[in-house]
Every structure is written in C-alpha cells, then in structure tokens.
C-alpha cells in the first residue's frame, strides 16, 4: 500500500471488503435517482477537497498515470462550450489538436519513444509512449497577469489566474508574455482566453471539469500544499519502483519554476526532458526585463539630450 495513494483520497479507511471504499461517505446522503439540485460541495465527493475562498488551489498532473484518452480536453470544451477546430490529421502521433489555443484549454501531448528490445521489463507506469495533459500553469508570478494593462487578468480568491471576459480589450500583450505559450487571442471574439481552473465551478464547490473527468486521476485537483506533498511522495515511490527518471516540474526549485516564476499552481510529474513535451526547462519572468530595457533606454536618450544641449550651447555662428 503506497502512502502517496492514500493521501489522494484521505477518506479511504481500511474497511474490510474487496475494494477499500473509493467513494466518499457523503454518497450515502444522495440515494435518489432524481436529485433536486447540484450536490453541495460536490468536490468533496470527487476530489476529497472542500473548496473555500482564500485557500490556494491548483493541479498536480501525474503524467505517469496518463493514458492519453483526452477526456480532459473534451470535458473542458463541453463545460466552457469552446469550439472544436477542424484541422485534419496532424501526423504528431495521436495528438490532432496540436497545442493549447484560445479554444483548446487542455491539450494532451503524445511522444512515441518505443524501446522495442525492452518492452518486457518496462519501468512501472507510463513508458515508451509519453502522454501528458498540458494546461495553463497558473504561475505564482504570472507573466500574463503582470503584463496585462487593463487588469482583465487577475489572481482570484482561489490563487488562480483568470482572464475576465468583461474587461479584456484584446490588446494581446499577455500572448507573447506567457513563457509557456498558453494564453491566446481569439480573432473571432477579440478577447484573450485560457484555462480559468474552472473559476465558476470553484465558486459553486465543484471540482474543475478536467480533474473530475480524468479516468486514472492523472490530473489531481486540490490545495497546493497537499498536492505538493502528495507529489513528492509519489516521486519517491516511483524511484523506489525503478522509474528513476520521474521528477517534478513547476515546484519551487524545480525546472519550470525558474527565473523568478517561483512556483506553478498547475505543476507536473514528468519522466523525460521538459522540451520533449514542448515545455521550457528554465523559463524566466519577463517583468524582470522591464528595468534593464527602460533604464538603458532612458539613460541613452538622456545622454543624447545632454549632447544636444552641449551642441546647442555654442555661440551663434
């Protein structure tokens, strides 16, 4: 029995029986087929988490559990009613949605690295065909938020980063600011869009749609500290089992949380170089480059201004 797994479902008790109850005790409060309204705090049943404003929430995406089924992509689009794009087959293994965009807020990457001679002693969990569900990182020092001149991008009471559709005027500055190429401008409605970590669902006590739908709980939602602790235990457990290449991406001090970003609210457990998944290994926080650029610029302009004053100070010819 691995520790890492229990904390994922804290209510698991060691009952007798074939499967230690994978269901929350509150399931016994709703036994009618027609229920009268949304189950209050449904997130307790689906993720073992009670959502309260003021706490810091995020995703832990354990790619070693990912079976590349894309339920997260579909659940996100169905909840947020995002359009599908008819782009035809991509030739990028089973990934035909190609990347995050204004209408694709969850995207599963597929990388085939099949080691034909060693498929009968593969390392535990995912191997040979790397699948990862990519999403907005909801960075602690979010570059998109820092760049946004209208305040449309803001940090919510759940410590997540959201584009407020009633404020955004489509200036597009967040798009180049994002070090992960996540946020995108939708040319048809003129606004920036990205994953909101289901801000409206969190307000209703509901677990984000992708985390709830994920069949193997590769996407886990919860309070950041719990997720981080669970993730560290998971990495140790994987190393013990022989998956020595497993590491965290986006936690303090790890790849992905470098250059002043501090930490990513949505962090990952990867088993290969970040670039293989299309992720930067050491992204930086763009707002650190404001001072050097502006400073040098002003200094140059000022010194040239002095030169002008000097040139103009001579007597009239």
């Amino acid at each position, binding site marked *: 029995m691995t520790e890492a797994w229990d904390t994922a479902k804290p209510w698991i008790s060691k009952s007798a029986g074939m499967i230690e109850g994978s269901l929350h005790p509150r399931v016994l409060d709703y036994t009618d087929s027609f229920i009268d309204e949304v189950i209050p705090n449904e997130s307790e049943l689906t993720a073992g988490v009670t959502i309260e404003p003021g706490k810091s929430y995020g995703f832990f995406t354990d790619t070693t559990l990912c079976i590349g089924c894309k339920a997260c992509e579909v659940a996100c689009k169905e909840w947020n009613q995002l*359009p599908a794009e008819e782009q035809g087959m991509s030739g990028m293994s089973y990934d035909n949605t190609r990347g995050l965009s204004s209408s694709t807020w969850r995207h599963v990457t597929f990388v085939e690295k099949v080691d034909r001679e060693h498929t009968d002693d593969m*390392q535990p969990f995912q191997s040979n065909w790397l699948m990862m569900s990519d999403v907005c990182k909801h960075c602690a020092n979010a570059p998109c938020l820092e760049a946004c001149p209208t305040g449309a991008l803001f940090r919510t009471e759940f410590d997540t980063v959201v584009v407020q559709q009633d404020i955004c*005027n489509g200036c597009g500055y967040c798009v*180049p600011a994002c070090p992960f190429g996540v946020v995108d401008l939708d040319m048809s409605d003129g606004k920036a869009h990205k994953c909101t970590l289901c801000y409206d669902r969190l307000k209703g006590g509901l677990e984000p749609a992708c985390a709830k739908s994920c069949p193997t709980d590769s996407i886990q939602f919860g309070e950041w500290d719990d997720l981080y602790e669970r993730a560290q235990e998971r990495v140790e457990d994987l190393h013990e089992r022989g998956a020595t290449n497993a590491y965290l991406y986006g936690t303090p001090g790890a790849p992905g949380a470098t250059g002043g970003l501090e930490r990513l609210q949505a962090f990952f457990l990867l*088993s290969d170089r970040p670039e293989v998944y299309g992720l930067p*290994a050491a992204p930086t926080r763009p707002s650190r480059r*404001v001072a050097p650029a*502006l400073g040098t*610029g002003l200094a*140059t302009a000022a010194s040239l201004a002095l030169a002008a004053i000097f040139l103009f100070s001579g007597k009239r010819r």
Partner: protein
Amino acid sequence: MTLVNDVPFDRRERGTRKAERQPGGAKDTPTYYGHPALKAAPWGWLVWSYIFVAGTAGAAQVIGTAAQLSGREDLKPVRDNGRIIGMLGALAGAPLLIADLHTPKRFYNMLRIFRSTSPMSIGTFTLLSFSGFTGLTVLPQALRRLFPFWRGKKAVETVADVAQFPAAVAGLGMTSYTAALLSATSSPLWAAAPKELGGRFAASSVASGAAALALVEELNDRPANARLLGKLALVATAANLVFSRLSRLKYRERKVEAAIDADPATATAYRAATVIGVGVPLFCLGVSLLSGRHSRRLSLTASLATLAGGLLMRKAVMQAGENSANNSAISLTFAREDGGRGELPPGARPLIPAEDGTRRRRLH
C-alpha cells in the same frame, strides 16, 4: 465560423501538413514535432509604426527642450517644430494603438489600472502625460494661428515653457518604454538583449527626432540649424550602431539569430534597416562634417534615410521577435537551464540526444 450545437466550429481548411522542426537553436534540444512552444505577439504594422512615431515625437520634444534651454534665438524654430512634431506624434499614436486592439470599443480600460510590471500600462500613462504636456507646449502656436488678435499671449507663453520640461521627461519615456514592452515578453529575440534593445530604440528615436527637425530646418532654409541637428543625429546614429552590434552578439550567444537569418523577408528588412538607417546617415553626415561644407542634398538624404531606417528597424525587430516565438527550436533552446549558451549547470537533467522524440532511447 459555422455554429455547431451553438458552439462555433472553426472550419479552417483541413490542411494536414506535417509539423517540421525549424532551423536554429541548439541541435541537441528536442522539440515537440517542431510545433511552436510559445505564441507570437498578435501585432502588425500598427504597432511597429506606432513605436517609430512615438519615439520620434518624444525625441523631437526632448531636442526642442534642449533648444529652449540654450536660449538661442536662432534655435527658437527648432523648439517650436519640436513641439509640433511631438504633438503630431501624440495625436497619431493613440489612434494607432486603439486600432490595434481586438476589442477597440473597450480602449478606455487601459486607464482602468496601473501596473508597474506592465510596460504597456506604464506606456499608456506615459503617452497620456506626454500628449497632455505637449498639448500645453503647442498652445501658444495654436492660439496664435486660431485667434490672431488674442492679447493674453504672455501668460500662455510661460505655461508652455513651464510645461516643456515634463513634456521632455515624458518624451524620454516615449523613446524607450516600447523597448521595455518588447523585452518584457518571452519572445526569445526580444528577451535576449533587453539593455541593447532599450539603447537601440532610444538612440534610433533621438536620431529620427533630430533628422525630422533637421529636415524641417533644411526645407525652411536654415542650414545652420540643420547642420547642428545633423551633428546630433550623427552621434545618435553612432550610438544606434553600437547597440545594434551589441545585440547581434547577444543573439548569437543565445542562439536566436536564425529568427533573423532563416526567414528571407526578415533578413532583408533587418539588413536594410541597418544600411539605410545607420549606414547612409553616417556616411552623409560624416562626409559633410569632414568636408566642412554643408551640402543640402547630403543633409536631406541623411534625414530621410534615418527616418526610413528607423521605421524599417522597428518592423524588422518586431518580425524577428515573432519568428523567434514561432520557432520552437529557438524558444526551447533559449529557455534551457544554460539559456542556450551550451553549458548545463551540474545536476540539470541530461539532454537526451534525439530529434523530435521519435528515436529510440534507453534512459539510464
């Protein structure tokens, strides 16, 4: 876009082309089938022309202030023209920016908040104050033209002269905040050399400002002033050259040069900007300086070349920046632990020698 289950369904042509890894970056950095790892800024000609106009207007106002400080009567027209060019720049700037918004109806939201981390937020308030104070400085000329018989001239004059200084300070900002705006993004080429980009935009702006004023002076047959402004333009252009060379070195070090060289259009624009914007003026001003004689033709060509080069440089830098974002080989190398310089810090995950993730590998 057709609507399917009242969800817009983007029927883009079903182009099934295979993503290819683009040239550039470090050979041993894998990419995800060559698919872009960043998103390029959705900006076009409206933005790079705004950057040029803002820079020139800001510089013109600064040079005008320098002229006012010198107290020389012969430089009064330089001050007045500086103010006019500044005003024209300010008047052109706002519409250019608003037109670039994708939801222009909400342009006023730019004034909703101030964020010190956002050069665009800083820029908005810089442009606002610059336009305001420049407006005050041109007030006397405007009143003189509109109400010739108006008597209270003296008071307005002093207001204009007082407003001159904050206008100049804002003018300094106008020359450089746009560089900060580009550097404070993740597009590798813009982020590779923030200081150099700042210096380059500032120098180029002052050169353009001086060139514009010199042009006006030359056309109004005041060669002396034109010559003096030419000297200033020369100094500024020299600074521009220095900063361009420095940024080129930084681009090579961070392996982002392919963003310029790989795409023929960008490469030619970039080279042309240097030749026209820096080469021609240096030559013309240099010759006229050494020969001691002032040649009207040389001065005009220098001014026009500086202006054209300045505009072209902004276009080339913007385009190169977007290329660097769309090229995952560049962007993922740039964002490596070693910044693409080639030495990984100890303990960093080993780079797996593989093209785009299709080759077999045995993880140790």
